[in-house]
């Protein structure tokens, strides 16, 4: 009995490190700082596939890269015409929707990724959004609307074929982050797939933080709101008085 358990343990231990194909990757930026003149950023993601043996000849290897911002709950509302004017009538709450999500791949996702793997790793946009227990039969329509609106704002990006993959070994792609980023951990994931199945996953987080003046103002506003409010008022009154004094001086 003990010997059997020992064999199982050895088999398990051997199974994990001995992956035939592994991804080795790097990012052009370790962290992103939001400064006063922040106008978006671009991350270059590059890497290679490490192989202990020649690749199996079956299906070609494909690469999928995702970058995901912090998730927030959102409410999606639908307008309908009532009494001649357009009014919000239906609403649904989506528990988890990433504030930023980009998917880049070597080919069309439905061809290089199976449904089961997508479900497991939540790779496509539709899977990255989570709405639980809304009880709506038309929840899909609201999810689609969220994806549509965010895609227009470049907060969600799907670029199939944007990952360059050379000799089944070297790959690189770049992902553009818009200026209106939410602070938090941005998770970059790289998937190697073959015949729709995920062979290996690589994950790295990029912290996105406000720094300097941006940080100071944000912290003051949230930790000392009264002081912040009074300071805002003081600036307003001072600016108003200064402009008035300036114009009086000019007229003289």
């Amino acid at each position: 009995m003990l010997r059997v358990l020992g064999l199982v343990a050895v088999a398990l231990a051997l199974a994990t490190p001995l992956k035939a194909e592994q991804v080795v990757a790097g990012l052009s930026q370790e962290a992103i700082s939001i400064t006063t003149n922040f106008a978006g950023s671009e991350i270059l993601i590059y890497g290679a596939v490490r192989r202990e043996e020649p690749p199996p000849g079956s299906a070609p290897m494909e690469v999928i890269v995702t970058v995901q911002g912090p998730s927030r709950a959102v409410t999606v509302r639908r307008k309908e015409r009532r009494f001649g004017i357009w009014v919000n009538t239906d609403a649904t709450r989506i528990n988890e929707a990433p504030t930023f999500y980009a998917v880049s791949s070597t080919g069309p996702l439905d061809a290089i990724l199976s449904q089961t793997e997508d479900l497991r790793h939540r790779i496509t946009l539709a899977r990255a959004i989570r709405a639980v227990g809304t009880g709506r039969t038309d929840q899909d329509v609201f999810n689609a609307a969220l994806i549509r609106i965010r895609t227009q704002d470049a907060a969600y990006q799907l670029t199939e074929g944007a990952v360059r993959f050379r000799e089944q070994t070297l790959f690189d792609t770049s992902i553009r982050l818009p200026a209106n980023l939410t602070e938090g951990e941005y998770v970059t994931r790289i998937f190697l797939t073959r015949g729709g199945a995920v062979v290996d996953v690589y994950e790295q987080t990029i912290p996105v933080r406000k720094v300097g003046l941006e940080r100071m103002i944000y912290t003051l506003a949230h930790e000392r709101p009264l002081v912040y409010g009074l300071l805002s008022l003081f600036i307003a009154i001072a600016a108003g008085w200064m402009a008035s004094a300036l114009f009086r001086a000019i007229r003289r």
Partner: protein
Amino acid sequence: MQIYLPIAEVSVNAFLLLGLGGIVGILSGMFGVGGGFLMTPLLFFIGIPPAVAVATEANQIVASSFSGVLAHLKRKTVDLRMGTVLMLGGVVGAAIGVQVFAALTAIGQVDLLVKLCYVVFLGIIGTLMFFESLRAIRRARASGGVATPVRRHRTWMDKLPFKMRFRTSGLYISVIPPIAVGVFVGLLAAIMGVGGGFIMVPAMIYLLGMPTKVVVGTSLFQIIFVTGIATLLHATTNYTVDMVLAVLLLVGGVIGAQIGAAIGVKLKAEQLRILLAVMVLAVCGKLAFDLLVMPAELYGIAFDGAGH
């Protein structure tokens, strides 16, 4: 030059904000309106989150109104006594308005109600003011260029108690109508996220019978206090006042307000009123159009959390 706004969490062009502040500031100085009813929708349009736009706008109005009121104080066109009475009413109204706003937000129809409020009030005030000033201009022409002062008729208002003398306005009336006007304007101001000058100005002229020259300065005077309190409330409860956005808007705004006040002196009172009426009607028309015409995107996204 792009600037990242720390509270709004968006990046916008600094010169665009300075320009917007300047234009709205000129209007503010000319007409004695805070300019919020123009600026708030403009901020939505350039992508500032509504909660931040409303709160920051209140802060900016403080600056432009203060700059404007100083210009008016120099010319002695501020009725301080009347302003104080209106302000007391306004503060009470604003406090009630914040509660009403919270209740509407809970129902989830606050956007629509705010817009309907805009359309209804801007429509009524714009139309009334437009035709009244048109008549006044015709009358002025008929009587050879000299505007005849409109004699106030004795009404039920003169029978109310607690009379007070407002020397600058040349009025001896009960304090009840000004307080009522203040409460009403404060209430609407809190719900609509504006200073309320565009309601206050016509109310002073037509309801209280104050002379137009005094109305602008007095309106600005009380707006400072109502929007000042609104700024503090927003900053402490919703954390939605964006200092960087406010500074950019108010630098343009305070300069604009000075220019506006100078232009306002050169124009005749009737001309001033007809211009304000046209502007109010234009904003009203735009908002009504948006409600009536099918929007390009039927769905909208709202964040849960701060301010909601």
